[in-house]
């Protein structure tokens, strides 16, 4: 392989992964990290995703391990550019000689494919320059690292930006040691995360909202024992919507272990920005803003008293030096404080676009509607600014983010729509905050007589295809999902009706009059 060639990497083991990744980068080869096969998940969906990534990146070689090889081998005949699958052991047998490659800061360092969904993930180009700028931004300006004593502790997956850039590349740039543990170990026993922070006197850690909730749920007060987390000065939170309640409950639970809630560091970022876009000031903890819910729908974040009609949003902080963040309306004009619109950002950390996808790139990387012709990243997130700090309200495109993984509703809707017993095209998938955690809800129109069986079948299908368990599947009578004037089901309205409890529910109870196939068809 030569400089600029792409190397797909499917290596679950953390140390082998890091060495493979860095080895490739040093040789000027562009690594393309791909997540390993999840257990219990539809194998076919996995092969499709890997094939897509191999094709979209034009990777000519796929690097894996002896154990993982059988799970990726079926991709070889399906991906055109892919010539070989090699294991790390095989690669180590040969002497590859001295590496002598000149690397320019503007060169591609690696491709990070957007995570989660079965919808064709896009390859975000990340240059050495992007990595250097973003690492400096979050390690020095964000975390205010101190190389004389800081130590990271992470269980985040390394094929994802937060684990790879946040805990491998950033700390390498700034000379911070990091203790890694496998993601699966944390999920099996969340207490391990706390134990490792305690044992290694960790000062910096990071996790999505769900992980803090999992600890609160699973760790028993009586087990806290001698746990001392007073060393932890940065507990970052990002990658999915942050709930103030989740973080408060975590702090409350771990108060006996001397956890300092000021260590919480809410932040905002995405793969297209290399990693981090905003951080709150170090040691400022969770600060939130309570606004009127009805006002939010009208694109205004009006302060309100906490209660029924109010939403509490977490302050995600400000942009880094040399970077900018703003909120714009649909025509790309900047909005004032407390006006809700699309979040845009620019600066030296921001990627130049998607690999070999000029149209997709032009959709998301473009100027604002003002004289300044600079390129901004249109994040697709909705939010508002307040004195230079950002609050995130949701996804413009109804992206479903559950436990740090992104799903496009259209993908889930399509799969369910094709199932027998479901009216084609009459499915709505959305996420809703349930007990402080984002959860997937799927609604589908179907025959009342089959409602119970259909509910179970839909849930099974979603788990099989997406490795995601829906919080609830609601079968509604034919023709009851709210629709647009062109007849498409409306996601936001459906979500609102679900939360209000006004969604009609089909029940397969004997003696109940059943909806007929053609009842209630709307325009």
């Amino acid at each position, binding site marked *: 392989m030569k400089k600029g060639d792409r190397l797909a990497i499917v290596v679950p083991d953390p140390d082998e992964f890091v060495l493979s990744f860095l080895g490739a980068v040093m040789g000027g080869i562009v690594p393309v990290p791909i997540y390993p096969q999840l*257990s*219990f998940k539809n194998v076919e969906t996995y092969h499709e995703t890997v094939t897509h990534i191999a094709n979209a990146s034009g990777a000519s070689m796929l690097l894996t391990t002896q154990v993982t090889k059988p799970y990726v081998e079926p991709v070889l005949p399906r991906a055109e550019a892919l010539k070989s699958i090699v294991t790390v052991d095989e690669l180590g047998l040969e002497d590859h000689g001295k590496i002598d490659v000149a690397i320019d800061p503007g060169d591609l360092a690696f491709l990070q494919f957007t995570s989660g969904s079965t919808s064709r993930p896009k390859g975000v180009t990340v240059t050495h320059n992007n990595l250097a700028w973003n690492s400096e931004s979050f390690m020095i300006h964000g975390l205010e690292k101190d190389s004389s004593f800081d130590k990271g502790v992470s269980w985040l997956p390394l094929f994802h930006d937060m684990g790879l850039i946040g805990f491998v590349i950033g700390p390498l740039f700034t000379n911070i040691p990091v203790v890694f543990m*496998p993601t699966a170990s944390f999920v*099996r026993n969340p207490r391990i995360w706390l134990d490792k922070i305690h044992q290694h006197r960790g000062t910096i850690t990071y996790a999505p909202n769900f992980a803090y909730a999992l600890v609160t749920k699973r760790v028993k007060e009586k087990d806290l024992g001698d746990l001392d987390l007073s060393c932890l000065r940065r507990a970052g939170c990002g990658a999915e919507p942050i709930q103030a309640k989740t973080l408060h409950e975590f702090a409350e639970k771990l108060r006996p272990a001397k956890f300092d809630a000021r260590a919480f560091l809410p932040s905002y970022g995405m793969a297209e920005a290399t990693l981090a876009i905003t951080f709150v000031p170090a040691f400022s903890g969770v600060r939130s803003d309570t606004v009127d819910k009805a006002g939010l729908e009208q694109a205004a974040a009006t302060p309100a008293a906490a209660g029924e009609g109010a939403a509490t949003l977490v302050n995600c902080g400000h942009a880094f030096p040399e970077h900018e963040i703003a909120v714009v309306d649909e025509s790309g004009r900047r909005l004032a404080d407390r006006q809700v619109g699309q979040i845009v950002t620019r600066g030296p950390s921001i990627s130049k676009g998607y690999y070999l996808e000029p149209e997709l790139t032009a959709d998301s990387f473009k100027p604002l509607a003002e004289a300044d012709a600079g390129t901004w990243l249109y994040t697709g997130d909705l939010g508002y600014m307040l004195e230079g700090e950002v609050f995130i309200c949701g996804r413009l495109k109804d992206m479903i983010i559950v436990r740090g993984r992104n799903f496009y509703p259209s993908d889930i809707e399509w799969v369910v729509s094709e199932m027998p017993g479901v009216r084609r095209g009459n499915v709505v998938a959305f996420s809703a905050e349930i007990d402080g955690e984002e959860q997937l809800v799927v609604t589908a129109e179907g025959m009342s007589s089959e409602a119970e069986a259909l509910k179970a079948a839909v849930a099974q299908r979603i788990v099989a295809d997406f490795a995601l368990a829906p919080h609830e599947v609601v079968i509604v009578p034919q023709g009851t999902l709210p629709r647009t004037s062109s007849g498409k089901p409306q996601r936001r309205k459906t979500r609102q009706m679900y939360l209000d409890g006004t969604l009609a529910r089909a029940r397969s109870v004997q003696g109940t009059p059943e909806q007929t196939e053609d009842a209630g068809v709307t325009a």
Partner: protein
Amino acid sequence: MMQVVRGCMERAELLAVFARTAAEVAEKEFANVLESTSISELGIDSLGMLEIIGSLERELKIQIPDESLAGILTVKDLLNAVESRQSV
């Protein structure tokens, strides 16, 4: 609390422990869990399954290595993995 003696647990008992643990983690009851039931049929995702495995490991005082997780698709596969560790 169920009394657990390493290596002596009957298969049916193991199935019951699994069903109870799964119900605790998923916070819902599972009716008719059979060995032939596939994990995805229960509506449990990969993270949920790892949580269940973690609970089983603590309760049965065993450790199931990561390598033996990849091929688990049904309840039977999981119980086999548990049983092989119990007899170690």
